[in-house]
């Protein structure tokens, strides 16, 4: 039955080459922790992606309750945390996942650096990876404000003042992010939009590029 459905789709869309390309790319021995335990260092990239998926899923559930305005934001997070069934788990996963994703990405970057995997021909993939790193830091910075508690508010205020002290473009960056003179209603809306739409969009595009390049070039050889 499933085979018949597959054949039906395959006859019309020729999906087999695509599927074989995905399924058959060979995983060499030196990155396989089942053969060499020390190869676990090659897992950090995959784990970063795994936690990123968790972040996207838990974030989607958070937006079912979260209200991005200064009157209700804090109350909605508090309600989610204290009243909603498993709300504390969903928010907890998003909160701790944000830190874990940074840790995993940091370890992945170090693995790539110390194995010299960024060298020719993989220069472009390294640059895309660094851009992913910056997008992740941006997601961390914008997400930190959203609960609208004192920690969030003052950390963001300090962050924006630091941005403001950058010569020439600093004041423009600050105005762009705050949307006015003070950290207030506009700032929260902007951070929400950046955190939920702009940066995840950029992240998905960069991740696609990252993975397509890995498929095209393969994993770097053994040292």
């Amino acid at each position, binding site marked *: 039955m499933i085979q018949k459905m597959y054949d039906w789709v395959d006859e019309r869309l020729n999906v087999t080459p695509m599927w074989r390309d995905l399924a058959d790319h060979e995983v060499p*021995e030196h990155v396989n922790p089942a053969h060499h335990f020390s190869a676990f260092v090659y897992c950090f990239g995959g784990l970063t992606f795994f936690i990123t998926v968790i972040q996207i899923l838990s974030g989607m559930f958070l937006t079912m309750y979260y209200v991005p305005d200064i009157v209700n934001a804090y109350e909605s997070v508090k309600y989610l945390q204290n009243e909603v069934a498993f709300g504390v788990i969903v928010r907890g996963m998003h909160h*701790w996942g944000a830190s874990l994703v940074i840790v995993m990405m940091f370890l992945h970057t170090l693995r790539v650096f110390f194995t010299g995997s960024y060298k020719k021909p993989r220069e472009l993939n390294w640059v895309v990876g660094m851009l992913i790193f910056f997008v992740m830091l941006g997601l961390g910075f914008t997400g930190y404000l959203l609960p609208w508690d004192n920690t969030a508010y003052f950390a963001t205020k*300090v962050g924006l003042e630091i941005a403001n002290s950058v010569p020439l473009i600093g004041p423009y960056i600050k105005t762009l992010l705050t949307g006015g003179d003070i950290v207030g209603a506009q700032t929260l809306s902007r951070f929400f939009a950046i955190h939920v739409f702009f940066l995840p969009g950029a992240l998905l595009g960069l991740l696609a590029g990252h993975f397509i390049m890995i498929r095209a070039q393969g994993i770097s050889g053994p040292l």
Partner: protein
Amino acid sequence: MAKHDKDATFVGDSRISAKRIPNIAPSYSDFPGKSEPFWPNFLLKEWMVAAVCLVGFLILTVSHPSPLTDKANPNDTSFVPLPDWYFLFLYQLLKYPWASGDWVVLGTIIIPAVAFGAMVLAPWLDKGKERRAKKRPVATGLMLVSLVGIFYLTWAADHEHSLHHSSNQAGGGAVASGDPNFKPDEIWTKQTSCMGCHGNNMEGMVGPNLQKIGSKYSAEEIEGIIKNGKPPGMPAGLIKDEAEIKKLAEYMAGLK
């Protein structure tokens, strides 16, 4: 680019070939070493690693609920701001005199830009063919030095914050020992700027308990503290009126 196979199944611009490719995995016996296919062999192992990771993650989540402080209050001057931990090293950099004030450009832009710029451009700065870390000492050395710097700055920021926090805690700890029956004089209850930190009844909140401050400081000393502040927490010049300061200091010096 469309392939123009003569034997296309469908009319028009179709790229679907009439020739079916069989959906069979190649034999991995031809590959070097113990290579294996990504699907399903390797992905299964990767999922096992992910499952172990997920268990640790969930234990962390369940045992440490994510924190939520009080609702944002822009007027709360006593709240000590701190960025999320992975920004601490950048934040700490700005606290050093050589990277703040007149030199703040060094801390906000030049050092981070050089560091992150070098990371982005690493493939072009380290062009040699050699991949092993030991065979390219400059790249490895710079990275190790940066790592030590990042870890040190993060630790220093956290350490300073906890020191600062514990000095607040000393004041906070006095809340418990504060006398609930203590009734401050009218001169105190007029000073809203004092009460914000030291409490309505001088019991201490962010600032220390002042109910027995006279046993520690004389009237002149209290006057000096009110006028000039006292690091780290007490700001200077909250009361402008000299006569008021004198009256308040004398009252407080009498509390023993």
